[in-house]
């Protein structure tokens, strides 16, 4: 369950998010390349066999498609620009009401470079987040979050365990259909009705079992009204600051207020919450080191480019690999 050789899931997330912020500040092919390479190396050498460990592979595929699509669109819809013309695509006349959009035309080197850098930044961002999600055990992450968010975690775990059950049920029911001499591949009434009946029955049994195991047990202490009110006020303030941001008013004060109200609500809720945690993962030196390296990578990414900086950034982004070993495979 808890493997001492792996990092605290929040440390993985701090690393991933730091790299994501760093990518948005980098604006240079070499720096971005270094970050992407480091994230990929760390993930592929440290991920486990669990299903979520594939997040990075999926993330890379999605990012590749996005990159290619972005480049394709950049070539197809050109904007008249000064610069070195690489090649020209015949221009297609668009109707009057689409004035300002150009299909085809000259493709300049400057434009391609700019668009590629932009797409690569998005690519790196996706890779950084996907890397963190394939390294951090989602269940551990939920366990590491404040106790008030526990319910959401349980719902997620139940959902993930029910899916394989569902697949099994479908198989069994289709088999039973064949045994009754049904040649029809899929019948709404004959497949879905038993499936839903079974799913409902399962849900009731699970609910009963959870009830009988003390789920939702709440000792009567603390006032449940105050954290709820604080949360509402916080969300309202957040909404206000977002609207202010969009329409261009000053938003800083309301945002700070919103965040502090939400934190206060979580703090209160957590204090009233009597749940305890079994073998919580500890935040140790290694975790602090990874967090520090994440912050340094953000700082480095903002500096002007030199080759030395690129190498340093790569090494800093590679930090977790020096303090972890490959995860043990659990059966």
């Amino acid at each position, binding site marked *: *369950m808890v493997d001492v050789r792996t990092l605290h899931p929040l440390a993985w997330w701090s690393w991933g998010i730091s790299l994501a912020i760093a990518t948005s500040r980098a604006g240079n092919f070499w720096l971005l390349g270094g970050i992407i390479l480091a994230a990929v190396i760390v993930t592929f050498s440290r991920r486990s066999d669990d299903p979520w460990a594939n997040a990075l592979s999926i993330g890379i595929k999605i990012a590749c498609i996005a990159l290619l699509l972005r480049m394709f669109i950049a070539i197809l819809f050109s904007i008249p620009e000064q610069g070195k013309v690489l090649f020209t695509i015949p221009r297609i006349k668009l109707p009057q009401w689409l004035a300002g959009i150009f299909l085809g035309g000259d493709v300049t080197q400057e434009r391609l470079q700019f668009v590629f850098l932009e797409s690569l930044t998005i690519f790196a961002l996706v890779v950084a987040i996907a890397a963190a999600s394939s390294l951090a055990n989602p*269940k551990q992450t939920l366990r590491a979050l404040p106790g008030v968010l526990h319910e959401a975690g*349980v719902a997620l*775990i*139940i959902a*993930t*365990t029910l899916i*394989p059950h569902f697949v099994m049920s479908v198989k*069994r*029911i289709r*088999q*039973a259909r*064949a*045994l*009754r*001499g*049904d*040649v029809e591949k899929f019948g709404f*009434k*004959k497949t879905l*009705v*038993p499936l839903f*009946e079974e799913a409902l029955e*399962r849900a009731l*049994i*699970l*609910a*009963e*079992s*959870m*009830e*009988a*195991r*003390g*789920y*939702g*047990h709440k*000792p009567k202490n603390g006032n449940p009204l105050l954290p709820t009110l604080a949360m509402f006020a916080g969300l309202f303030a957040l909404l206000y600051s977002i609207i202010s941001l969009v329409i261009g008013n000053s938003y800083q004060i309301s945002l700070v207020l919103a965040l502090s109200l939400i934190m206060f609500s979580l703090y209160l809720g957590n204090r009233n919450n*009597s*749940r*305890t*945690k*079994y*073998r*919580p993962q500890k935040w140790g030196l290694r975790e602090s080191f990874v967090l520090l390296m994440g912050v340094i990578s953000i700082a480095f990414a903002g500096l002007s480019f030199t080759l030395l900086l690129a190498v340093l950034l790569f090494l800093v982004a590679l930090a977790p690999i020096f303090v972890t070993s490959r995860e043990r495979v*659990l*059966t």
Partner: protein
Amino acid sequence: MIRFNKVTLVYPYVQRTIFEDLSFEVPEGEFVLVMGDTGAGKSTLLKLMNGLVPHHTGGIFSGTIMVDGKDTALHKPRDLVDLIAIVGQNPALGFVTDTVEEELVFGMESLGVAPEVMRKRVEDMLDLLALTPLRQRKLSSLSGGEAQRVAIASVLTMNPKILLLDEPTSALDPIAAEEVLATLSRLVHDLGITVVIAEHKLERVLQFVDRVIYVRNEREVAVGFPQEILKDSTLAPPIVHLFRGLASEMSESEIPLTVRDARRQLGDLAAWLSPLQRHQPTITAEPILELENVAVNYGAKVALKNISVAISPGEIVAVMGRNGAGKSTLLSSIAGLRKLERGLVRVCGVDPQMLKGKELITKIGFIPQEASDLLYAQSVEEELRHSDNDNGVPSGTTSRLLARLLPDIDADVHPRDLSEGERLCLVLAIVLANNPPLLILDEPTRGLDYRAKDRLIAAIRECRDLKSAVIVASHDVELIAEIATRVIVLADGEIVADGPAGEILTSSPAFAPQVAKVLAPAQWLTVNEVLKSIGRSAP
């Protein structure tokens, strides 16, 4: 410890009263068995004890139930978990997390038990229930017996004084069942926990229990020592039936409940019984089913290897073995539902995988473990109509068959509202409507009481008389002793024994029925056999 006082329970929109005016008491620190027919309300009685009924299910409830001085009407089940815990009929469905260790702490985390205490209790429970090697295993990878032990451990971590279990051994093979029951018995004796279980297979549990609650009907519940209750109960294990049949020969009147007691009292019976003459039918007909070197794999796991068997019409073959030995895989391969790695299956000379639709059901009748999977209609009547249609038989055939198996059934009822036994009869009627030459049943006795089992036995015998071959996979040794002509024992995907029922069943301690254990070394299997040999009719 648990006191019922004038308890009445009625569900709205249902004609039948569930319980009326029940009063009884369960003393502390005892191993208590709840017995009764299917549908008598054993599960409901257990759920009443910890308040799941009516808090969770609804229903109109009157009277009081006091558990250790607390009124269940005033406390929700979740607030009583450190006092009374329940493990449901199918523990795997009640698992909330996905590894063994997380499952053990789920309840304690909700209760807010201090981390150090949790840590220690988890280790204690792992030791107590012999789960240490499983602590990091995924719950989905556990066998039936392991899952049952994990479920017990996961409620025991909350330190309850009372543990309720609903049919803890019904899905288990005899060995795993023995393990679970021995564990429960240890909890009673070492930790002083009051354990209440509901169970059909009395032959498995009676030797362990201190007291019996017999639910006769909605009004009448008898509580007493096993000897008192079993003196005249209609439900009884084979030992008791044997004893009752021979009662006039016996000087003592104490009913034996364990094999040891019975051997002491009936020990010399084996000597004066006329020597056993079992008529072993000589099979001359061409085999209806042939398997040649069949192998089946699930991914890297080998499920069956090198199975070669031939079965002829008129045989009733029992397939036995541990959970996970490959019984279900064998049966589904015979029905053509599995891709074979190697080998050949021939049913009436045809590869069953080639059979589809109507061709399949005229050759093979298959009743899967979840018999209700075969049902999809909204009422019994509709189901029967579909069956006549699917089978291509004159309308009313299935319905007549069902009437023979189950004389008084309400045709308007939804199949899900039938009891387990009634549902099996309905499925049997549907499958047998076509009179298939091969009938396959996978674990048919789960949740069946003795009466439903008798119906099943009659149906299977009738099938045999019509020259069909029957294959039954089951953990229920008493059922197999009653019907099987031949037994195949599987272990690890291989056939380890194949021979006449009398020989195989009496040669292994795990698979021997009670009568065989009592009268060993003579190879008697059932009460009826013994009584018939001395000219008595069955009780």
